[in-house]
């Protein structure tokens, strides 16, 4: 046991002192890197955790509906459909496709002029130069071309006894029951008018137009890999990963150096306090 005197001066190698200037600079950069990479590492960790349990959390089944995110992914903007009421059904046109309720019927760039429900239960969808007959199940029963029409169709409707009435540039016409002939003359018809589609139909059509939806898992994966940020995203995440690797290495170096010095100091201190 020493008698209360202070331990002798440590030599230059074992002395606990402020690190040398080079090491000091490395520590400063280690801290800066840590702060810069912290957010990205946090992002990687959180998204990684969620992705590990994506299936259990139902993220692979959850469709993202945020318009800004869909736009970011290049999903085409879906315009409000042009919709017509056809009895209990809705005939809607998305701009590229005709739908009966939410069921796609035919692709078409032409906007329908209206619809009419006929006495035999078929639905007539009028285009300027064609008439499409649909079954209530959405099957195309017949496409009637311009050669069988009394002119360019401007509007369509149905008479009280369920016959098809149309307005063309030449006036009003009523079709016979088989739609094989037309009688000219004013038609006391209920004319089809476009109406606002119900919200559910609008959403169903938007989903159908967009195709397979964007899942939350996809977004998380792209956030995790950085691809959500475009071409530079993965490079940014790579930089974060490299920074994290650099931090780990420098951290181990600091710990090792400090450990050596502390051990040496403790050994000298112990020898001094407990001389053998």
């Amino acid at each position, binding site marked *: 046991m020493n008698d209360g005197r202070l331990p002798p001066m440590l030599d230059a190698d074992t002395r606990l002192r402020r690190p040398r200037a080079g090491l000091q600079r490395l520590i400063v950069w280690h801290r800066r890197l840590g702060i810069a990479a912290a957010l990205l590492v946090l992002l990687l960790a959180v998204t990684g955790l969620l992705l590990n349990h994506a299936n259990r959390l139902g993220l692979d089944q959850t469709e993202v509906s945020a318009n800004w995110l869909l736009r970011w992914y290049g999903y085409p903007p879906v315009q409000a459909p042009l919709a017509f009421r056809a009895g209990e059904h809705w005939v809607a046109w998305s701009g590229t496709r005709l739908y009966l309720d939410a069921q796609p019927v035919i692709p078409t760039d032409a906007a329908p002029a209206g619809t009419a429900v006929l006495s035999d239960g078929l639905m007539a969808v009028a285009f300027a130069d064609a008439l499409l007959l649909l079954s209530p199940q959405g099957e195309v029963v017949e496409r009637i071309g311009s*050669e069988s029409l009394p002119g360019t169709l401007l509007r369509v409707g149905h008479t009280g006894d369920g016959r098809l009435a149309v307005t063309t540039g030449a006036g009003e016409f009523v079709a016979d029951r*088989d739609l094989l002939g037309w009688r000219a003359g004013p038609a006391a018809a209920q004319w089809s008018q476009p109406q606002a589609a119900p919200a559910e139909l609008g959403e169903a059509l938007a989903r159908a137009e967009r195709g397979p939806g964007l899942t939350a898992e996809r977004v998380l994966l792209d956030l995790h890999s950085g691809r959500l940020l475009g071409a530079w995203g993965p490079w940014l995440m790579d930089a974060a990963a490299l920074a994290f690797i650099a931090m780990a290495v420098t951290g181990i170096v600091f710990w090792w150096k400090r450990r050596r010095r502390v051990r040496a100091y403790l050994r000298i201190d112990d020898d001094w306090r407990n001389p053998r």
Partner: protein
Amino acid sequence: MKPLSTLFAVLLSLACMPAPAADVYLAPEKFLAQNFEGKVPEPAVLWITGDTRKQVESILGHSAGSLRLRYWARGPRTAWILEEIGKTEPITTGIVVDNGAIARIDVLIYRESRGWEVRYPFFTDQFRGATLTELNQLDRNINGISGATLSVRALTKLSQVALLLHDKVASEKRAAR
């Protein structure tokens, strides 16, 4: 005008160009009028169901589309206005069948960007007199056109379908007698 402005103007004009529109070579109603000496008969309807549907779909290689087709008939002659997609757009074709053989085939409306050469008589005349074999094939080889392979194929299929449907109409008439 500076070269950059010229380039910009050219690019802008290209961007503003409308998509290729449908070329109407012969209006369907005129096609019918020409083939029935100006007096077009009332149309009739043939249901494409059961065995007929299977045969049509076998020829086309895809769904027959509508459940029924209209046609125009007088005596042994029937006229059909059919559509088949060439590459991406439907080609509207008028086909007249007389006594089980093709009398005339006309491209009425063409919407594809290439392959329009199928409208010319040097091609369509090959179908004249063609009949259907037992395997629903044409009884002759149709020479193709370079760069219009899909349109040639579409017209060949439509001619087979028209001949098949004509046979159905003829057999229905015979059965009704």
